[in-house]
């Protein structure tokens, strides 16, 4: 049984809730849905699961972008209702007829809701009957249908070819469990919603099915399917360019090169005895002058050159006259171009895909104003979405946190985690330098007890910066070393403890378990994932596996996940800044620092606007 069905505006006002399903929802599923899904640009998904103590809900939603309305249905996850999508669609149509911006209450909908729900339930029942009859046939036909559809999509765009496989496949689709699509096939009075694309992961042929059946037989369907099939078979390989070092002034090299001096103890520190910095300021504190240049129209022109002449003329006409409603097919080419552009900027393929789906979901059905091109609308929407993702969800003011911990008399513990060779130790030293400049006493804990020379490396940094280092040599348990380091810090009054860990691959189970133990045992204030900006599609895998392993293998009920990201080697990528976007999207953690060089001062904050501009250039 449906728990609740809500209609609310984008501005937050609830317009209608079903009164007969008067169950009060436990927890706050709608607010959580908005905060963790819709505002995180994941509105291309099909459903969202919400767990509250005592219940677990599943939420499905539909947008009406033209009027700025959202329809959400909530039901118990174990029930797996089949008619929900169908019902949402019919409610949306009904409501769109009745809607009036001035009206605030729509009581007459109660009756129509009852009717619609009964109709939807009846349809679902009928389909269930049909599928149960045809189920033994369905499984064998699925194979045929799959191959048949793949071939037909590769070649023709006709509906007739697809039709033969349709009947058989509609049954097999039911077997798949993605029954919502079946409901859609039957009642295809409007354009298929973009959220259906989310389940395309299960089988590319599903989506093609729906689109072939939908009215008009739009030419986008096959293009979309081809995209998905191709993207699955050929992950984009972005080759790494050779690193080009900036021309640094010679004096810097001379200043920091102490290999000629004999005694190691004579190493000069960047900070003198009083802790007053006598060298350059960390770039964290420098203001970045970002010049705002207007968008160049030429970029868009070159993108549009690919379309045929006739297409250009009609799109020009449309842009002047303004179109009634934006449809999926109109958005497709612009979105595809945008997705390709993002991928050339080193955004992971999966992320670019999800983002485009989310933007499509938010634009579909919107009225286009006159004198606007579709590509510019899509670009504006994508820009807004990117700014929204990259804007941190919580405060990234570390100094404030350090002060708060200081008041409580505890040291502020930061753990640096990441895969091999991303720059953890180097950037740990940079962060220590920056903190020292803000009058914070730092201690370094060498918990990388595996790699040869790791402890010596940190010892050198600590001597240069004149900060205490806690080390226990090699082959010791990192969790114990960290624990003792924190105790030592409390004893000698250090404000911050920076814990360096060994690099580890995300698939390595025993190492991930060790990391999880370290975090569980010491409960650090900040778990900083260090990722390099050169990484491509692997960023998604790294972060999701790290988060997952930390959640799975932690022994305590409260799981600590990645709290922040430190992006390194930012100076080696010119404008291929997409790794930042992939990492933030997949983990939800904000980028706290950006390492842009190999000296102590090369630590910056992330400038959201410049990244967005570079991504969309």
């Amino acid at each position, binding site marked *: 049984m449906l728990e609740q069905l809500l209609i609310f505006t984008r501005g*937050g006002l609830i317009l209608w809730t079903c009164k007969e399903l008067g169950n009060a929802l436990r927890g706050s599923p709608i607010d959580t849905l908005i905060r963790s899904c819709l505002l995180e640009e994941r509105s291309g998904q099909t459903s969202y699961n919400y767990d509250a103590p005592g219940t677990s809900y599943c939420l499905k939603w539909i947008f009406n972008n033209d009027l700025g309305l959202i329809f959400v249905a909530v039901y118990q996850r174990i029930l797996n209702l089949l008619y929900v999508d169908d019902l949402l669609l019919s409610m949306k149509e009904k409501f769109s007829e009745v809607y009036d911006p001035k009206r*605030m209450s729509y009581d007459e909908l109660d009756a129509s809701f009852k009717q619609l729900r009964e109709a939807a339930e009846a349809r679902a029942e009928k389909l269930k009957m049909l599928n149960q009859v045809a189920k033994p046939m369905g499984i064998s036909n699925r194979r045929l249908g799959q191959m048949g559809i793949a071939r037909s999509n590769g070649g023709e765009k006709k509906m007739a070819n697809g039709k033969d496989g349709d009947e058989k496949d509609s049954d097999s689709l039911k077997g798949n469990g993605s029954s919502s699509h079946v409901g859609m096939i039957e009642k295809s009075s409007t354009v298929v919603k973009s959220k259906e694309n989310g389940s395309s992961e299960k089988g590319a042929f599903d989506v093609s099915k729906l689109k072939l059946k939908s009215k008009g037989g739009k030419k986008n369907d096959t293009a979309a399917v081809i995209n998905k099939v191709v993207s699955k078979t050929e992950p984009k390989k972005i080759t790494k360019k050779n690193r080009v070092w900036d021309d640094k002034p010679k004096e810097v090299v001379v200043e920091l090169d102490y290999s000629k001096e004999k005694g190691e103890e004579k190493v000069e520190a960047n900070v003198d005895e009083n802790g007053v910095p006598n060298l350059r300021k960390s770039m964290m504190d420098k203001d970045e002058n970002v010049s705002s240049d207007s968008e160049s129209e030429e970029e868009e022109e070159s993108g549009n050159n690919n379309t045929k002449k006739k297409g250009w003329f009609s799109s020009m006409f449309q842009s002047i006259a303004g179109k009634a409603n934006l449809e999926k097919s109109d958005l497709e080419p612009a979105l595809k171009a945008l997705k390709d552009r993002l991928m050339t900027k080193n955004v992971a393929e999966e992320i670019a895909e999800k983002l485009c789906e989310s933007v499509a979901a938010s634009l579909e059905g919107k009225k286009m104003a006159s004198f606007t091109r579709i590509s510019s609308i899509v670009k504006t929407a994508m820009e807004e979405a990117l700014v929204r993702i990259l804007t941190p969800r919580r405060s990234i003011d570390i100094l404030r946190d350090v002060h708060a911990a200081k008041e409580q008399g505890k040291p502020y513990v930061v753990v640096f985690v990441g895969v091999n060779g991303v720059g953890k130790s180097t950037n740990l030293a940079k962060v220590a330098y920056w903190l020292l400049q803000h009058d914070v006493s730092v201690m370094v804990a060498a918990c990388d007890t595996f790699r040869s020379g790791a402890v010596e490396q940190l010892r050198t940094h600590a001597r240069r910066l004149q900060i205490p280092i806690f080390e226990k040599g090699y082959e010791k348990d990192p969790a114990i070393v960290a624990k003792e380091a924190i105790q030592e810090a409390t004893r000698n009054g250090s404000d911050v403890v920076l814990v360096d860990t060994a690099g580890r691959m995300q698939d390595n189970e025993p190492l991930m378990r060790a990391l999880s133990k370290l975090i569980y045992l010491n409960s650090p204030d900040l778990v900083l994932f260090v990722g390099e900006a050169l990484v491509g599609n692997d960023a998604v895998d790294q972060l999701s596996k790290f988060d997952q392993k930390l959640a799975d293998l932690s022994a305590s009920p409260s799981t600590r996940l990645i709290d922040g990201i430190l992006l390194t080697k930012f100076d080696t990528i010119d404008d291929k800044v997409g790794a930042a976007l992939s990492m933030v999207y997949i983990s939800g953690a904000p980028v706290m620092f950006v390492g842009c060089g190999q000296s102590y001062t090369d630590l910056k904050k992330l400038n959201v606007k410049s990244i967005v501009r570079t991504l969309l250039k």
Partner: protein
Amino acid sequence: MEGTEELLKQLKQWSNVAEQRIREIPAEQLYVSIGVLFLTFILFLLIRLLKRTKSNTIVLTGLSGSGKTILFYQLRDGSSHQGTVTSMEPNAGSFVLHSESEKKGKINPVCVIDVPGHSRLRPKLDDYLPQAAGLVFVVDALDFLPNCRAAAEYLYDILTKASVVKKKIPMLILCNKTDKVTAHTKDFIRKQLEKEIDKLRTSRTAISDADIANEYTLGVTGEAFAFSQCYNKVVVAESSGLTGEISQVEQFIREIVRP
């Protein structure tokens, strides 16, 4: 050389002719015309000055979940309808306050903009600040202490923005949800916020020229921060969105929009 000499001669001639013409006009007419020009000029200046302060936009801001959208609908319609969820887009409307709608005579409509408080939508506030004549910062008095730091940071960011300081936009810190028994009093909230902002001041201005995020510094160095030290006027009030107790807000709005 000859050309320039000729030009000079011509100019001299013209100036003589002009002088003669002016002398011919009777004195009163001359003075009157000058006076009229002067008056129109002054009038023009006055109108421009008045027009600038005519902005009647009030911006509602605050953390997510503090009750801005409910307040918006209370101001507009006098009731909170069926409840609200987290806003994803701003609510804007130009209307006559609901409590004043029964009064007769011409009443100036107020433009109220409710900006979402979710941290990912913070940049939207910058779009609406230039046109703001007054700011209302809504604070949840019920759930105050867990969110105290976040609220103080947001408030600090707003108070140090250039547009707010330069234009001296008056601000109202509104303690919402005071109908509940466990809600804190406005004095308590004010003191807590002042303490938090004081701490933020020290941590953000550790190195003075490194304070890039905030364009101005707040308060007087050496003294504990108090809202009275701000350049713009800051007032604290109480309200309750659900029950409709918004008289203090309306008073603040009327002070700004219709002096």
